[in-house]
Protein backbone atom coordinates (compact mmCIF):
# COMPACT_ATOMS: atom_id res chain seq x y z
CA UNK A 1 0.00 0.00 0.00
CA UNK A 2 1.33 3.43 -0.92
CA UNK A 3 0.81 6.71 0.92
CA UNK A 4 -0.17 9.76 -1.15
CA UNK A 5 1.74 13.06 -1.15
CA UNK A 6 -0.73 15.48 -2.73
CA UNK A 7 0.29 18.67 -4.55
CA UNK A 8 -1.48 21.22 -6.79
CA UNK A 9 -1.05 22.55 -10.34
CA UNK A 10 2.16 23.69 -12.08
CA UNK A 11 4.62 22.14 -9.61
CA UNK A 12 7.81 23.37 -11.28
CA UNK A 13 11.29 21.86 -11.36
CA UNK A 14 12.62 24.77 -9.29
CA UNK A 15 10.54 23.64 -6.31
CA UNK A 16 11.10 19.93 -6.98
CA UNK A 17 14.84 20.58 -6.74
CA UNK A 18 15.99 24.22 -6.40
CA UNK A 19 18.80 25.22 -8.77
CA UNK A 20 20.85 26.55 -5.88
CA UNK A 21 21.65 22.92 -5.03
CA UNK A 22 22.52 21.79 -8.56
CA UNK A 23 26.23 22.09 -7.85
CA UNK A 24 25.78 18.91 -5.77
CA UNK A 25 26.80 16.05 -8.06
CA UNK A 26 25.80 13.26 -5.65
CA UNK A 27 22.13 12.49 -6.28
CA UNK A 28 21.54 10.93 -2.85
CA UNK A 29 22.83 14.05 -1.12
CA UNK A 30 20.83 16.21 -3.56
CA UNK A 31 17.63 14.29 -2.81
CA UNK A 32 17.65 15.60 0.78
CA UNK A 33 16.45 18.90 -0.77
CA UNK A 34 13.62 17.39 -2.84
CA UNK A 35 10.46 19.54 -2.75
CA UNK A 36 11.85 21.69 0.07
CA UNK A 37 10.65 25.02 -1.29
CA UNK A 38 7.05 23.80 -1.29
CA UNK A 39 7.05 21.13 1.43
CA UNK A 40 9.81 21.05 4.02
CA UNK A 41 8.44 17.79 5.47
CA UNK A 42 8.74 15.78 2.25
CA UNK A 43 12.40 14.78 2.12
CA UNK A 44 12.58 13.64 5.74
CA UNK A 45 9.21 11.85 5.86
CA UNK A 46 8.67 10.28 2.42
CA UNK A 47 8.89 6.46 2.50
CA UNK A 48 9.83 4.04 -0.27
CA UNK A 49 6.73 3.10 -2.34
CA UNK A 50 4.96 6.41 -1.54
CA UNK A 51 3.24 8.08 -4.47
CA UNK A 52 3.12 11.74 -5.51
CA UNK A 53 -0.24 12.89 -6.85
CA UNK A 54 -0.55 16.33 -8.43
CA UNK A 55 -2.68 18.52 -10.67
CA UNK A 56 -1.91 20.02 -14.08
CA UNK A 57 1.51 20.44 -15.69
CA UNK A 58 3.62 18.64 -13.07
CA UNK A 59 7.34 19.27 -13.59
CA UNK A 60 7.09 22.40 -15.70
CA UNK A 61 10.17 24.54 -16.23
CA UNK A 62 13.74 23.38 -16.50
CA UNK A 63 15.00 20.28 -18.31
CA UNK A 64 16.97 19.22 -15.23
CA UNK A 65 16.66 15.47 -14.95
CA UNK A 66 17.72 15.99 -11.33
CA UNK A 67 13.98 16.59 -10.67
CA UNK A 68 12.69 13.06 -11.39
CA UNK A 69 16.01 11.62 -10.15
CA UNK A 70 15.68 13.05 -6.61
CA UNK A 71 12.10 11.75 -6.37
CA UNK A 72 13.28 8.33 -7.54
CA UNK A 73 16.17 8.47 -5.06
CA UNK A 74 13.64 9.07 -2.29
CA UNK A 75 11.87 5.85 -3.26
CA UNK A 76 8.80 7.41 -4.87
CA UNK A 77 7.02 4.51 -6.62
CA UNK A 78 5.31 6.59 -9.28
CA UNK A 79 3.82 10.00 -9.97
CA UNK A 80 0.18 10.41 -10.89
CA UNK A 81 -1.01 13.75 -12.27
CA UNK A 82 -3.76 15.41 -14.25
CA UNK A 83 -1.00 16.23 -16.77
CA UNK A 84 2.79 16.44 -16.97
CA UNK A 85 5.13 18.98 -18.52
CA UNK A 86 6.73 17.45 -21.56
CA UNK A 87 10.42 17.36 -20.60
CA UNK A 88 9.73 16.05 -17.08
CA UNK A 89 7.53 13.29 -18.51
CA UNK A 90 10.23 12.28 -20.96
CA UNK A 91 12.96 12.41 -18.32
CA UNK A 92 10.95 10.28 -15.90
CA UNK A 93 10.46 7.60 -18.56
CA UNK A 94 14.11 7.75 -19.54
CA UNK A 95 15.22 7.01 -15.96
CA UNK A 96 12.55 4.37 -15.41
CA UNK A 97 10.31 6.34 -13.00
CA UNK A 98 6.67 5.51 -13.85
CA UNK A 99 4.38 8.49 -14.58
CA UNK A 100 0.63 8.16 -15.03
CA UNK A 101 -1.33 10.95 -16.69
CA UNK A 102 -4.97 10.53 -15.71
CA UNK A 103 -6.69 13.89 -16.30
CA UNK A 104 -9.35 15.17 -13.92
CA UNK A 105 -9.82 11.74 -12.30
CA UNK A 106 -6.88 12.86 -10.19
CA UNK A 107 -9.26 15.01 -8.16
CA UNK A 108 -10.61 11.86 -6.52
CA UNK A 109 -7.24 11.27 -4.84
CA UNK A 110 -6.52 13.22 -1.66
CA UNK A 111 -3.58 13.61 0.71
CA UNK A 112 -3.28 10.62 3.02
CA UNK A 113 -5.24 8.26 0.73
CA UNK A 114 -3.86 4.77 0.36
CA UNK A 115 -3.33 3.52 -3.18
CA UNK A 116 -2.43 0.36 -4.98
CA UNK A 117 -1.23 0.86 -8.54
CA UNK A 118 -0.92 -1.80 -11.22
CA UNK A 119 1.36 -0.16 -13.77
CA UNK A 120 0.94 -2.86 -16.40
CA UNK A 121 -2.85 -2.70 -16.35
CA UNK A 122 -2.93 1.05 -15.69
CA UNK A 123 -5.21 0.44 -12.71
CA UNK A 124 -5.25 2.72 -9.66
CA UNK A 125 -7.22 1.64 -6.58
CA UNK A 126 -8.00 4.15 -3.81
CA UNK A 127 -8.23 1.49 -1.15
CA UNK A 128 -9.70 3.56 1.68
CA UNK A 129 -12.47 4.86 -0.60
CA UNK A 130 -13.16 1.70 -2.57
CA UNK A 131 -12.63 3.57 -5.87
CA UNK A 132 -10.85 2.14 -8.95
CA UNK A 133 -9.52 4.45 -11.66
CA UNK A 134 -8.72 2.83 -15.01
CA UNK A 135 -6.11 4.71 -17.05
CA UNK A 136 -4.58 4.18 -20.47
CA UNK A 137 -1.51 1.95 -20.30
CA UNK A 138 1.77 3.55 -21.41
CA UNK A 139 2.45 3.45 -25.18
CA UNK A 140 4.29 0.25 -26.17
CA UNK A 141 7.50 2.07 -27.09
CA UNK A 142 7.53 3.84 -23.74
CA UNK A 143 6.77 0.59 -21.91
CA UNK A 144 9.83 -1.00 -23.51
CA UNK A 145 12.04 1.79 -22.14
CA UNK A 146 10.37 1.53 -18.73
CA UNK A 147 10.72 -2.27 -18.66
CA UNK A 148 14.42 -2.02 -19.48
CA UNK A 149 14.81 0.26 -16.44
CA UNK A 150 15.40 3.37 -18.52
CA UNK A 151 16.69 4.57 -21.87
CA UNK A 152 20.38 3.73 -21.38
CA UNK A 153 19.62 0.08 -20.52
CA UNK A 154 17.19 -0.04 -23.42
CA UNK A 155 19.85 1.20 -25.85
CA UNK A 156 22.48 -1.15 -24.45
CA UNK A 157 20.07 -4.05 -24.92
CA UNK A 158 19.54 -3.03 -28.53
CA UNK A 159 23.16 -3.15 -29.59
Amino acid at each position, binding site marked *: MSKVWRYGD*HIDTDVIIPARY*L*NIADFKELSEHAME*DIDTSFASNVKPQDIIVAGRNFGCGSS*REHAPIVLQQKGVKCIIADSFAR*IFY*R*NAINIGLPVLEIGQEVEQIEAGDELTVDLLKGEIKIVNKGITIQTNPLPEFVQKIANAGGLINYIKGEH
Partner: protein
Amino acid sequence: MGMTMTQKILAKHSGCDFVSVGELLISQVDLILANDITGPPAIDEFNKIGKPVFDKNKIALVPDHFSPCKDIKSAEMCKHLRDFARQHEIKNYFEVGRMGIEHALLPDAGLIAPGEIIIGADSHTCTYGALNAMATGVGQTDVGAAMASGTTWFKVPKAIKVVLTGKKPRFVQGKDIILTIIGKIGVDGARYQSLEFCGAGIAELTMADRFTICNMAIEAGGKNGIFPVDEKTREFLQERGVTRPWTSVEPDSDAEYDRVLNIELDKLVPVVAYPHLPENTHPAAESNHIIIDQSVIGSCTNGRLEDLAQAAEVLKGQKIHPHVRCIIIPATQEIYKNAMALGYIDIFIDAGAAVSTPTCGPCLGGYMGILAHGERAISTTNRNFRGRMGHVDSEVYLASPYTAAASAVLGHIADPGEVLK
Protein backbone atom coordinates in the same frame (compact mmCIF):
# COMPACT_ATOMS: atom_id res chain seq x y z
CA MET B 1 -3.33 16.65 -45.51
CA GLY B 2 -0.33 18.97 -45.25
CA MET B 3 2.34 19.35 -42.61
CA THR B 4 3.46 22.11 -40.26
CA MET B 5 7.06 23.37 -40.24
CA THR B 6 7.84 21.11 -37.28
CA GLN B 7 6.32 18.05 -38.95
CA LYS B 8 8.36 18.65 -42.11
CA ILE B 9 11.66 18.84 -40.23
CA LEU B 10 10.85 15.74 -38.18
CA ALA B 11 9.81 13.82 -41.30
CA LYS B 12 13.00 14.66 -43.16
CA HIS B 13 15.20 13.61 -40.24
CA SER B 14 13.30 10.35 -39.78
CA GLY B 15 13.39 9.15 -43.38
CA CYS B 16 9.65 9.72 -43.87
CA ASP B 17 7.69 11.60 -46.52
CA PHE B 18 4.91 12.33 -44.08
CA VAL B 19 4.52 12.16 -40.30
CA SER B 20 1.27 12.54 -38.42
CA VAL B 21 0.54 14.03 -35.02
CA GLY B 22 1.17 11.57 -32.18
CA GLU B 23 3.48 9.34 -34.22
CA LEU B 24 6.65 8.18 -32.42
CA LEU B 25 9.83 8.61 -34.46
CA ILE B 26 13.54 7.97 -34.23
CA SER B 27 15.17 11.06 -35.75
CA GLN B 28 18.71 12.06 -36.71
CA VAL B 29 19.93 15.13 -34.84
CA ASP B 30 22.22 17.85 -36.21
CA LEU B 31 23.51 19.27 -32.94
CA ILE B 32 23.48 18.16 -29.30
CA LEU B 33 23.98 20.64 -26.48
CA ALA B 34 24.75 20.36 -22.78
CA ASN B 35 25.98 22.79 -20.12
CA ASP B 36 27.89 22.62 -16.83
CA ILE B 37 24.83 21.41 -14.89
CA THR B 38 23.42 18.88 -17.33
CA GLY B 39 26.65 17.94 -19.14
CA PRO B 40 28.37 16.00 -16.32
CA PRO B 41 25.44 13.61 -15.67
CA ALA B 42 24.93 13.31 -19.46
CA ILE B 43 28.57 12.26 -19.77
CA ASP B 44 28.05 9.67 -16.99
CA GLU B 45 25.09 8.23 -18.91
CA PHE B 46 27.06 8.30 -22.18
CA ASN B 47 29.93 6.39 -20.53
CA LYS B 48 27.54 3.59 -19.49
CA ILE B 49 26.81 2.90 -23.17
CA GLY B 50 30.45 2.26 -23.99
CA LYS B 51 30.46 3.63 -27.53
CA PRO B 52 32.42 6.55 -29.05
CA VAL B 53 30.76 9.93 -29.70
CA PHE B 54 28.79 9.79 -32.94
CA ASP B 55 30.33 13.01 -34.29
CA LYS B 56 32.71 15.27 -32.37
CA ASN B 57 31.69 18.23 -34.56
CA LYS B 58 28.00 17.94 -33.68
CA ILE B 59 28.22 18.29 -29.92
CA ALA B 60 28.32 21.67 -28.17
CA LEU B 61 29.38 21.92 -24.53
CA VAL B 62 28.97 25.29 -22.83
CA PRO B 63 29.86 25.87 -19.17
CA ASP B 64 27.60 28.88 -18.63
CA HIS B 65 25.31 28.27 -15.64
CA PHE B 66 27.63 28.46 -12.61
CA SER B 67 30.67 29.59 -14.59
CA PRO B 68 33.17 31.26 -14.13
CA CYS B 69 32.89 28.72 -11.35
CA LYS B 70 31.20 30.04 -8.23
CA ASP B 71 32.51 27.40 -5.83
CA ILE B 72 34.48 24.17 -5.58
CA LYS B 73 31.50 21.95 -6.41
CA SER B 74 30.74 23.83 -9.62
CA ALA B 75 34.46 23.82 -10.48
CA GLU B 76 34.42 20.01 -10.24
CA MET B 77 31.44 19.87 -12.60
CA CYS B 78 33.09 22.20 -15.11
CA LYS B 79 36.25 20.11 -14.94
CA HIS B 80 34.22 16.98 -15.70
CA LEU B 81 32.83 18.73 -18.79
CA ARG B 82 36.24 20.07 -19.86
CA ASP B 83 38.00 16.72 -19.42
CA PHE B 84 35.37 15.00 -21.55
CA ALA B 85 35.65 17.70 -24.24
CA ARG B 86 39.41 17.23 -24.42
CA GLN B 87 39.29 13.44 -24.34
CA HIS B 88 36.77 13.27 -27.18
CA GLU B 89 38.14 16.31 -29.06
CA ILE B 90 34.76 18.04 -28.96
CA LYS B 91 35.10 20.90 -31.42
CA ASN B 92 32.49 23.18 -29.93
CA TYR B 93 33.55 23.38 -26.31
CA PHE B 94 33.54 27.00 -25.17
CA GLU B 95 35.93 27.88 -22.34
CA VAL B 96 35.52 30.82 -19.96
CA GLY B 97 36.64 33.93 -21.83
CA ARG B 98 35.29 32.57 -25.11
CA MET B 99 32.11 31.31 -23.50
CA GLY B 100 28.67 32.91 -23.58
CA ILE B 101 25.16 31.96 -22.58
CA GLU B 102 24.49 28.92 -24.74
CA HIS B 103 21.33 30.07 -26.53
CA ALA B 104 22.84 33.41 -27.52
CA LEU B 105 26.23 31.87 -28.28
CA LEU B 106 25.36 28.96 -30.60
CA PRO B 107 23.34 30.94 -33.20
CA ASP B 108 26.01 33.69 -33.17
CA ALA B 109 28.70 31.02 -33.67
CA GLY B 110 26.92 29.88 -36.84
CA LEU B 111 26.05 26.49 -35.37
CA ILE B 112 22.33 26.66 -36.16
CA ALA B 113 20.75 26.61 -39.62
CA PRO B 114 17.16 26.35 -40.90
CA GLY B 115 15.65 22.89 -41.15
CA GLU B 116 18.03 21.37 -38.61
CA ILE B 117 17.18 19.44 -35.46
CA ILE B 118 18.91 20.53 -32.26
CA ILE B 119 18.39 18.88 -28.89
CA GLY B 120 19.85 20.32 -25.73
CA ALA B 121 19.86 19.39 -22.08
CA ASP B 122 18.47 22.81 -21.31
CA SER B 123 14.82 23.71 -21.58
CA HIS B 124 15.51 26.95 -23.46
CA THR B 125 17.04 25.07 -26.40
CA CYS B 126 13.77 25.97 -28.14
CA THR B 127 15.35 29.42 -28.79
CA TYR B 128 16.78 28.22 -32.12
CA GLY B 129 13.33 27.96 -33.70
CA ALA B 130 13.85 31.63 -34.52
CA LEU B 131 16.14 30.35 -37.29
CA ASN B 132 13.57 27.88 -38.62
CA ALA B 133 15.17 24.95 -36.80
CA MET B 134 13.32 22.28 -34.80
CA ALA B 135 14.95 22.74 -31.43
CA THR B 136 13.82 21.38 -28.11
CA GLY B 137 14.96 20.75 -24.58
CA VAL B 138 15.54 17.22 -23.32
CA GLY B 139 17.13 15.67 -20.25
CA GLN B 140 20.67 14.55 -19.67
CA THR B 141 19.91 10.87 -20.34
CA ASP B 142 18.58 11.81 -23.80
CA VAL B 143 21.74 13.81 -24.45
CA GLY B 144 24.00 11.03 -23.19
CA ALA B 145 22.24 8.53 -25.45
CA ALA B 146 22.24 10.87 -28.45
CA MET B 147 25.95 11.62 -28.10
CA ALA B 148 26.50 7.91 -28.82
CA SER B 149 23.78 7.30 -31.39
CA GLY B 150 23.25 10.64 -33.15
CA THR B 151 19.54 10.02 -32.87
CA THR B 152 16.71 10.57 -30.44
CA TRP B 153 13.02 9.72 -30.11
CA PHE B 154 10.23 12.21 -30.69
CA LYS B 155 6.47 12.25 -30.57
CA VAL B 156 5.15 14.42 -33.40
CA PRO B 157 3.46 17.37 -31.66
CA LYS B 158 0.21 19.11 -32.39
CA ALA B 159 0.63 22.74 -33.34
CA ILE B 160 -0.74 26.15 -32.45
CA LYS B 161 -0.68 28.66 -35.29
CA VAL B 162 0.23 32.10 -33.96
CA VAL B 163 -0.67 34.76 -36.53
CA LEU B 164 1.15 38.05 -35.96
CA THR B 165 -0.22 41.16 -37.68
CA GLY B 166 0.40 44.90 -37.55
CA LYS B 167 3.33 46.93 -36.26
CA LYS B 168 5.01 46.98 -32.86
CA PRO B 169 4.41 50.10 -30.76
CA ARG B 170 7.51 52.09 -29.71
CA PHE B 171 8.45 50.25 -26.49
CA VAL B 172 7.04 46.81 -27.27
CA GLN B 173 9.59 44.11 -28.05
CA GLY B 174 9.79 40.33 -28.32
CA LYS B 175 9.53 39.85 -24.55
CA ASP B 176 6.21 41.71 -24.39
CA ILE B 177 4.89 39.65 -27.31
CA ILE B 178 5.71 36.26 -25.79
CA LEU B 179 4.63 37.26 -22.26
CA THR B 180 1.31 38.44 -23.73
CA ILE B 181 0.90 35.11 -25.54
CA ILE B 182 1.69 33.14 -22.35
CA GLY B 183 -0.74 35.37 -20.45
CA LYS B 184 -3.45 34.44 -22.96
CA ILE B 185 -2.89 30.68 -23.19
CA GLY B 186 -1.34 29.92 -19.79
CA VAL B 187 1.83 28.11 -18.74
CA ASP B 188 0.46 24.82 -20.06
CA GLY B 189 -1.47 26.34 -22.98
CA ALA B 190 0.96 24.88 -25.53
CA ARG B 191 1.86 21.77 -23.53
CA TYR B 192 3.45 19.17 -25.83
CA GLN B 193 2.69 21.39 -28.85
CA SER B 194 4.69 23.46 -31.29
CA LEU B 195 4.09 27.20 -31.55
CA GLU B 196 4.26 27.99 -35.26
CA PHE B 197 4.56 31.70 -35.98
CA CYS B 198 3.30 33.26 -39.20
CA GLY B 199 1.68 36.41 -40.55
CA ALA B 200 2.73 39.77 -41.98
CA GLY B 201 3.73 40.98 -38.51
CA ILE B 202 6.83 38.76 -38.59
CA ALA B 203 8.54 41.18 -40.96
CA GLU B 204 8.31 43.75 -38.13
CA LEU B 205 10.29 41.58 -35.76
CA THR B 206 14.06 41.74 -35.42
CA MET B 207 16.00 38.50 -35.06
CA ALA B 208 16.49 39.35 -31.36
CA ASP B 209 12.69 39.59 -30.98
CA ARG B 210 12.30 36.17 -32.61
CA PHE B 211 14.97 34.56 -30.41
CA THR B 212 13.26 35.97 -27.30
CA ILE B 213 9.85 34.73 -28.45
CA CYS B 214 11.02 31.18 -29.27
CA ASN B 215 13.13 31.10 -26.09
CA MET B 216 10.00 31.31 -23.97
CA ALA B 217 7.86 28.81 -25.94
CA ILE B 218 8.73 26.40 -23.10
CA GLU B 219 7.16 28.83 -20.63
CA ALA B 220 3.82 28.08 -22.33
CA GLY B 221 4.63 24.36 -22.06
CA GLY B 222 5.60 24.21 -25.75
CA LYS B 223 7.86 21.57 -27.25
CA ASN B 224 9.24 24.16 -29.65
CA GLY B 225 8.56 27.48 -31.28
CA ILE B 226 9.39 28.09 -34.93
CA PHE B 227 9.50 30.99 -37.39
CA PRO B 228 9.69 30.79 -41.19
CA VAL B 229 12.78 32.14 -42.99
CA ASP B 230 12.75 35.66 -44.43
CA GLU B 231 15.29 38.25 -45.58
CA LYS B 232 16.30 39.05 -41.96
CA THR B 233 16.97 35.37 -41.26
CA ARG B 234 19.12 35.05 -44.39
CA GLU B 235 21.08 38.18 -43.44
CA PHE B 236 21.68 36.80 -39.95
CA LEU B 237 22.91 33.46 -41.30
CA GLN B 238 25.22 35.17 -43.75
CA GLU B 239 26.69 37.46 -41.07
CA ARG B 240 27.25 34.42 -38.88
CA GLY B 241 29.13 32.53 -41.57
CA VAL B 242 26.63 29.73 -42.07
CA THR B 243 27.85 28.48 -45.42
CA ARG B 244 26.85 24.82 -45.21
CA PRO B 245 23.81 23.96 -47.34
CA TRP B 246 20.48 24.20 -45.54
CA THR B 247 16.86 23.73 -46.51
CA SER B 248 14.23 25.90 -44.89
CA VAL B 249 10.67 24.74 -44.34
CA GLU B 250 7.33 26.48 -44.70
CA PRO B 251 3.98 25.17 -43.55
CA ASP B 252 1.68 23.61 -46.14
CA SER B 253 -1.47 25.63 -46.79
CA ASP B 254 -3.52 22.67 -45.53
CA ALA B 255 -1.39 21.97 -42.46
CA GLU B 256 -3.47 21.04 -39.44
CA TYR B 257 -3.46 23.20 -36.30
CA ASP B 258 -4.99 22.47 -32.94
CA ARG B 259 -5.91 26.14 -32.62
CA VAL B 260 -5.15 29.56 -34.07
CA LEU B 261 -4.07 32.52 -31.99
CA ASN B 262 -4.25 36.00 -33.51
CA ILE B 263 -1.91 38.64 -32.10
CA GLU B 264 -2.35 42.23 -33.27
CA LEU B 265 1.00 43.85 -32.51
CA ASP B 266 -0.45 47.39 -32.60
CA LYS B 267 -2.57 46.62 -29.56
CA LEU B 268 0.27 45.36 -27.33
CA VAL B 269 1.77 47.28 -24.43
CA PRO B 270 4.87 46.66 -22.29
CA VAL B 271 3.91 43.96 -19.80
CA VAL B 272 5.28 42.42 -16.61
CA ALA B 273 4.69 38.83 -15.40
CA TYR B 274 4.06 38.83 -11.64
CA PRO B 275 5.19 36.03 -9.34
CA HIS B 276 5.11 33.07 -9.43
CA LEU B 277 4.13 32.11 -12.99
CA PRO B 278 5.03 33.66 -16.36
CA GLU B 279 1.31 33.72 -17.23
CA ASN B 280 0.53 36.38 -14.58
CA THR B 281 0.92 39.27 -17.02
CA HIS B 282 -0.11 42.86 -16.28
CA PRO B 283 0.62 46.12 -18.11
CA ALA B 284 3.83 47.69 -16.79
CA ALA B 285 2.00 51.04 -16.63
CA GLU B 286 -0.39 49.58 -14.05
CA SER B 287 2.38 48.24 -11.82
CA ASN B 288 3.86 51.45 -10.36
CA HIS B 289 2.94 50.38 -6.83
CA ILE B 290 5.53 47.57 -6.91
CA ILE B 291 8.80 48.71 -5.30
CA ILE B 292 11.91 46.81 -6.46
CA ASP B 293 15.27 46.00 -4.87
CA GLN B 294 17.04 44.69 -7.97
CA SER B 295 16.89 44.83 -11.76
CA VAL B 296 18.57 42.13 -13.82
CA ILE B 297 19.16 42.66 -17.54
CA GLY B 298 20.60 39.69 -19.39
CA SER B 299 20.07 35.89 -19.81
CA CYS B 300 19.42 33.65 -22.82
CA THR B 301 16.11 35.46 -23.17
CA ASN B 302 17.31 39.08 -23.26
CA GLY B 303 21.10 39.39 -23.15
CA ARG B 304 21.65 40.20 -26.84
CA LEU B 305 23.16 43.41 -28.21
CA GLU B 306 19.75 44.79 -29.14
CA ASP B 307 18.54 44.19 -25.57
CA LEU B 308 21.54 46.06 -24.20
CA ALA B 309 20.90 48.87 -26.71
CA GLN B 310 17.40 49.25 -25.29
CA ALA B 311 18.72 49.33 -21.73
CA ALA B 312 21.32 51.91 -22.77
CA GLU B 313 18.68 54.04 -24.45
CA VAL B 314 16.81 54.20 -21.12
CA LEU B 315 19.84 54.55 -18.85
CA LYS B 316 21.76 57.18 -20.85
CA GLY B 317 22.28 60.19 -18.59
CA GLN B 318 20.16 58.60 -15.84
CA LYS B 319 21.04 57.22 -12.41
CA ILE B 320 19.92 53.88 -10.98
CA HIS B 321 17.55 54.54 -8.07
CA PRO B 322 19.51 54.64 -4.77
CA HIS B 323 17.59 51.63 -3.39
CA VAL B 324 18.11 49.44 -6.47
CA ARG B 325 20.96 47.15 -7.58
CA CYS B 326 21.01 46.96 -11.36
CA ILE B 327 22.98 43.99 -12.76
CA ILE B 328 23.61 43.86 -16.49
CA ILE B 329 25.00 40.70 -18.09
CA PRO B 330 25.93 40.68 -21.79
CA ALA B 331 25.16 37.16 -23.04
CA THR B 332 28.43 36.57 -24.88
CA GLN B 333 31.94 38.00 -25.03
CA GLU B 334 31.26 39.31 -28.53
CA ILE B 335 28.11 41.09 -27.36
CA TYR B 336 30.08 42.49 -24.41
CA LYS B 337 32.78 43.82 -26.71
CA ASN B 338 30.31 45.33 -29.17
CA ALA B 339 28.40 46.94 -26.29
CA MET B 340 31.66 48.47 -25.15
CA ALA B 341 32.48 49.79 -28.63
CA LEU B 342 29.02 51.34 -28.86
CA GLY B 343 29.43 53.06 -25.49
CA TYR B 344 26.72 51.06 -23.70
CA ILE B 345 29.03 49.78 -20.96
CA ASP B 346 30.07 53.35 -20.10
CA ILE B 347 26.40 54.32 -19.93
CA PHE B 348 25.65 51.41 -17.60
CA ILE B 349 28.57 52.07 -15.27
CA ASP B 350 27.95 55.83 -15.22
CA ALA B 351 24.33 55.11 -14.28
CA GLY B 352 25.51 52.99 -11.35
CA ALA B 353 24.87 49.49 -12.72
CA ALA B 354 27.11 46.45 -12.22
CA VAL B 355 28.23 44.79 -15.46
CA SER B 356 29.19 41.10 -15.41
CA THR B 357 31.02 38.64 -17.60
CA PRO B 358 28.58 36.27 -19.43
CA THR B 359 26.81 33.79 -17.15
CA CYS B 360 23.31 32.44 -16.48
CA GLY B 361 24.07 33.33 -12.83
CA PRO B 362 21.09 35.04 -11.19
CA CYS B 363 18.41 33.76 -13.60
CA LEU B 364 18.36 30.39 -11.88
CA GLY B 365 19.43 31.61 -8.46
CA GLY B 366 22.97 30.42 -9.04
CA TYR B 367 25.06 33.47 -8.10
CA MET B 368 25.78 37.09 -9.18
CA GLY B 369 22.60 38.62 -7.80
CA ILE B 370 20.75 36.34 -5.35
CA LEU B 371 17.72 37.75 -3.53
CA ALA B 372 17.26 37.80 0.24
CA HIS B 373 14.06 37.04 2.14
CA GLY B 374 11.27 39.38 1.04
CA GLU B 375 13.29 41.03 -1.75
CA ARG B 376 11.85 41.78 -5.15
CA ALA B 377 13.51 41.89 -8.56
CA ILE B 378 12.39 42.92 -12.00
CA SER B 379 14.25 40.78 -14.48
CA THR B 380 14.55 40.17 -18.21
CA THR B 381 15.01 36.45 -17.51
CA ASN B 382 12.44 33.76 -18.28
CA ARG B 383 11.08 32.27 -15.04
CA ASN B 384 9.54 33.75 -11.92
CA PHE B 385 8.86 30.49 -10.07
CA ARG B 386 9.02 30.52 -6.27
CA GLY B 387 12.63 30.78 -5.10
CA ARG B 388 13.95 31.00 -8.67
CA MET B 389 16.39 33.89 -7.98
CA GLY B 390 17.14 33.19 -4.36
CA HIS B 391 15.21 32.97 -1.10
CA VAL B 392 11.95 31.04 -1.30
CA ASP B 393 10.17 34.19 -0.10
CA SER B 394 11.68 36.52 -2.71
CA GLU B 395 9.84 37.62 -5.84
CA VAL B 396 10.72 37.92 -9.53
CA TYR B 397 8.81 40.06 -12.04
CA LEU B 398 9.57 39.30 -15.69
CA ALA B 399 9.84 42.11 -18.23
CA SER B 400 11.67 43.47 -21.28
CA PRO B 401 15.02 45.31 -21.09
CA TYR B 402 13.20 48.63 -21.68
CA THR B 403 10.90 48.01 -18.74
CA ALA B 404 13.60 46.56 -16.45
CA ALA B 405 15.87 49.57 -17.11
CA ALA B 406 13.08 52.12 -16.59
CA SER B 407 12.13 50.39 -13.34
CA ALA B 408 15.77 50.47 -12.18
CA VAL B 409 15.78 54.25 -12.59
CA LEU B 410 12.48 54.90 -10.84
CA GLY B 411 12.81 52.28 -8.06
CA HIS B 412 9.42 50.80 -8.86
CA ILE B 413 8.01 48.91 -11.82
CA ALA B 414 7.42 51.39 -14.61
CA ASP B 415 6.43 51.61 -18.25
CA PRO B 416 9.48 52.62 -20.34
CA GLY B 417 7.54 55.71 -21.47
CA GLU B 418 7.78 57.08 -17.93
CA VAL B 419 11.55 57.54 -18.35
CA LEU B 420 11.89 57.92 -22.12
CA LYS B 421 9.39 60.63 -22.94
